[in-house]
């Protein structure tokens, strides 16, 4: 049995603004508990990384934040998740997901044109006044996702013909076109080559000015490079959470240290 000293020196002091507050979160898949009493505060306009070995519950945890877990009928959620102090289960899930966007592990553009991929969410939420306005918002999102220069001449081309890295940036553009407050990244680079990965990482750095970011990764170097806070999850327990630098240089918990030094994982 793993002895866990959950250290919540959560960096919640007066001047820091908490965007998402996870309290006593427990998640079961039928009889198996995958998230065990997790408490976590996500600070506004910062990058919070969730690391841990495969099967530790990282993806489940991030999917609970925008209620994508609702799509899995076996999943049962206990505890509360607050977005700006409001319980996410008191909100309409479509509105919640407009406020909390998500980028998935595998790039998943729709089998439509590049333009239509971005326009999709804008149309769903009726977020444009005119055709020009729609075009302008698509352009803005593609620019923010650093994809505009590569695709500006072929917006009507089929999105699935783009490279994997471009597809992932298209998915990011599609997500931020809705001007969400939070963007969740679920291992966004695991299917990409190193060059494409660097581009996505730079983009995430850039995005945190405007968005609160939570990223799941099993790549520790990635977490070290781009995140402000790191949460180490192991077998559904939040083992350690704190400023990234502190976690990586002076981990408080033996488990964290062992994981970071590659003794298991």
């Amino acid at each position, binding site marked *: 049995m793993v002895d866990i000293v959950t250290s919540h020196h959560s960096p919640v002091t007066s001047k820091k603004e908490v965007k998402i507050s996870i309290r006593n979160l427990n998640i079961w898949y039928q009889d198996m508990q995958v998230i065990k009493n997790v408490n976590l505060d996500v600070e506004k306009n910062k990058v919070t990384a969730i690391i841990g070995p495969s099967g530790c519950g990282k993806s489940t945890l991030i999917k609970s934040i925008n209620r994508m877990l609702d799509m899995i009928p076996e999943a049962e959620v206990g505890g509360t998740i607050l977005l700006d102090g409001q319980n996410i289960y008191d909100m309409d899930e479509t509105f919640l997901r407009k406020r909390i966007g998500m980028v*998935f592990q595998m790039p998943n553009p729709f089998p439509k044109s590049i333009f239509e991929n971005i326009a999709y969410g804008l149309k769903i939420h009726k977020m444009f006044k005119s055709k020009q306005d729609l075009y302008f918002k698509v352009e803005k999102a593609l620019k923010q996702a650093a994809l505009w220069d590569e695709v500006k001449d072929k917006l009507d081309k089929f999105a699935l013909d783009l490279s994997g890295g471009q597809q992932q940036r298209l998915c990011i553009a599609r997500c931020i076109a809705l001007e969400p407050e939070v963007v969740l990244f679920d291992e966004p680079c695991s299917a990409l080559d190193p060059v494409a990965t660097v581009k996505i990482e730079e983009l995430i750095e850039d995005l945190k000015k405007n968005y609160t970011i939570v990223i799941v990764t099993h790549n520790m170097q990635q977490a070290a490079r781009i995140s402000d806070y790191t949460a180490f999850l192991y077998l559904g327990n939040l083992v350690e959470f704190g400023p990234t630098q502190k976690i990586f240089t002076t981990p408080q918990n033996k488990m964290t240290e062992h994981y970071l030094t590659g003794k298991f994982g």
Partner: protein
Amino acid sequence: MKRTQKENLIKGFFCLPASLSIFFLLGIVIVLFKEGLPIFKVTSLKEFLFGKFWYPTYEPPEFGILPLILGSFLVTFGALVISVPLGVAGAIYISEVASPKIKESIKPVIELLAGIPSVVYGFFGMVIVAPQVAKIFDLAVGLNAFTASLILGIMAIPTITSISEDAISAVPKKFKEASYALGANKWETILRVILPAAGGGITTAVILGMARVYGETMTVLMVAGGAAVIPRSFFEPVRTMTATIAAEMGEAVAGSTHFYALFAIAIVLFVITLSFNILADILSQRFRKRLG
């Protein structure tokens, strides 16, 4: 016996039945053309396809199959108007809305619907549907293009539903997830993501359903009314190409011009059915390519 010899023997044994179907197809095509082409010694292709009168036993006979072609098309069109919306809606329900339990019980029922012999549909149409149609629309007889479309539409539903359902279920889950994650609800996701993504497969389903209706013989023979006249409305009796062949082949003397004319109708049927199948094949392949 050596191992390679044994293997060759087994290969040959299984190759034979597989190639048999090709021989049969070739044989049918050869016979069709051999028995059908002589009619064009009597009439031109243009007169045959666009002639307005089908009087094969008159003196002199007339072999214009335009009324039959229009009869086939009218009934096929009517059947599609009924079967496409119902069939596709059924497929959406089964793959996206129904609980697994309901899905498990509906699918076999729909497959059963496909297994009912067409003569039973025809009988049902004649005895139950036609009198009701006559009553509701105040007609002397209920055997007409409308009744035929209604019955054929029901017959085409299983084909359209099951193939559309396969296409919809084959849409990768990641597209659905992406849509939900952008805050779309279930219906927006179905209408704007799933149906367009399954479009190629649904088109194939519609074309195969169309081929099913178009080639159907027994039912139309029984309920369409059987008048080889250019139809002016859905409530007039019509005769399709298939029904004409089935009804007249028995009385046509082998080797007569009437006999040749019936085979020539079969050529027309064959060519149109073949193009349906080729079209369905092209569309489904394009669809596969697009989804990568």
